């Protein structure tokens, strides 16, 4: 048989009732904190009595948390009550209804007369002085005319002409040979090298691009990217082993463009040096 309190409730029933009451109280206090309910509608003594009454019943962490939450909200409500009293006790507080009543009772003249006794408008001077005029004149003298300030830089007109291939090559706009011819040359070299050094019709990427200098290596990598893009060769990437192979095609294939995928390949100076030393990654 379960123990009963003086009201004839079992401990379980008391706990349930206590939880319900605390939750209702917390909801009300949240309403007050949200400024939807007047803070003085809450009877603080009654809330403290409820919290005290059920406190001995709580033994579970969540029950004690609920108790603490109720006390926390109660503290906030008391703070709000205190602020309310403080605000109303200040000399500036006026009951808006009383004030509205006063305002509607008074005519415009009366209100203006009252306002004039509390109004001290800012005083300002607006005046030009001889000194400021003299300063302004000096500034004007020193000011560069607009036509000079906005003058366009002189550009010498050069008649339109035709640049020769040599001139473009001198300015590094064109290489010595046409790009397509260069591509064809590299394609042919790739085919030859794959036949001699490659395996299963493919060549390791670094074996192909590595050259005696780093600059040349970068250039070969650059050309290789075009070989792949224009369908002269294809790449085989083995992700798990981090290996990349180049496979030259017998004929340039336009079909390859149907699935354009960018393959970023890092070609650092260190990796090129390692490759040169024969330390394959």
């Amino acid at each position, binding site marked *: 048989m379960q123990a009963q309190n003086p009201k004839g409730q079992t401990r379980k029933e008391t706990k349930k009732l206590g939880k319900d009451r605390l939750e209702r109280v917390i909801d009300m206090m949240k309403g007050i904190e949200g400024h939807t309910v007047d803070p003085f509608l809450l009877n603080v003594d009654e809330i403290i009595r409820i919290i005290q009454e059920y406190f001995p019943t709580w033994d579970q962490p969540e029950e004690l948390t609920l108790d603490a939450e109720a006390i926390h909200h109660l503290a906030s409500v008391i703070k709000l009550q205190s602020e309310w009293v403080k*605000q109303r006790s200040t*000399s*500036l*507080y*006026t*009951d*808006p209804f*009383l*004030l*509205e009543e*006063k*305002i*509607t009772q*008074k*005519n*415009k*003249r*009366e*209100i*203006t*007369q*009252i*306002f*004039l*006794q*509390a*109004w*001290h*408008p*800012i*005083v*300002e*001077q*607006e*005046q030009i002085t001889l000194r400021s005029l003299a300063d302004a004149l000096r500034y004007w003298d020193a000011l560069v005319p607009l036509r000079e300030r906005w003058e366009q830089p002189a550009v010498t007109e050069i008649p339109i002409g035709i640049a020769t291939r040599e001139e473009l090559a001198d300015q590094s706009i064109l290489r010595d040979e046409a790009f397509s011819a260069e591509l064809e040359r590299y394609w042919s070299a790739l085919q030859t090298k794959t036949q001699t050094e490659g395996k299963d019709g493919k060549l390791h990427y670094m074996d192909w691009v590595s050259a005696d200098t780093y600059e040349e290596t970068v250039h070969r990598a650059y050309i290789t990217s075009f070989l792949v893009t224009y369908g002269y060769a294809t790449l085989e990437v083995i992700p798990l082993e981090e290996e990349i192979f180049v496979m030259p095609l017998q004929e340039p294939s336009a079909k390859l463009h149907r699935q354009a995928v960018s393959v970023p390949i890092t070609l650092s100076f260190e990796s090129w040096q390692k490759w040169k030393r024969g330390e394959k990654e």
Partner: protein
Amino acid sequence: MSSKRKGTYAAKMKRATHILFYRRHQKPGVRGWELHKALGSDYPKVLDVLDDFLKPLDLQVKTVFQQENAPEKPTLDELDKARFYVTLRGDLQPKETKMIGWRIDDLAGLAITISYIISKKGQAARRDVEELLGEKIPGWKIGLNIDRYVRYGYLQQDDNEQLYLDWRTRAEVDEKALIDLLLRSEEERAAAESSEPQDEETDEESDQPN
């Protein structure tokens, strides 16, 4: 005070007068730190002396602190952050308001709006203010007037059409005195009225748009 020191203060006062009377920024008034920079760290003393000089002219140096409640003994830091203006020390006569560009009903509207906002703890819905003004001011004028009060810096309006008091009200209006005067008993009002001159012009007929 030695004559040299007197001369220094006279020069500083002159400089302070120039700074305070002539507008340097979009809004009138100057920050304390600007005076600090121009006059030195004893600028509060210079302003006190200037305030004494302005007294016979019915003008005063007004300090508006950053915080709502003015500190009793402000620190130099608080003064540096405050704003300083020269304002009228006493009050204007109704006739004089017209000289400075205010019609009696526009001023009455401003008085009502400010006191209503004060009573609402510094914030009121524009709709409520319009309703209140509508009792005494023609409808077509209400919106224009409120917009004017906002433009002049007496009020501030947020995106939710809530009105607040702005910098000019804090600088020019003695809020406590205004509320006290409004709530003064009818007898006192009658006594005050009987002692006022009777030559004020009526402006109440001029409610029509020009």
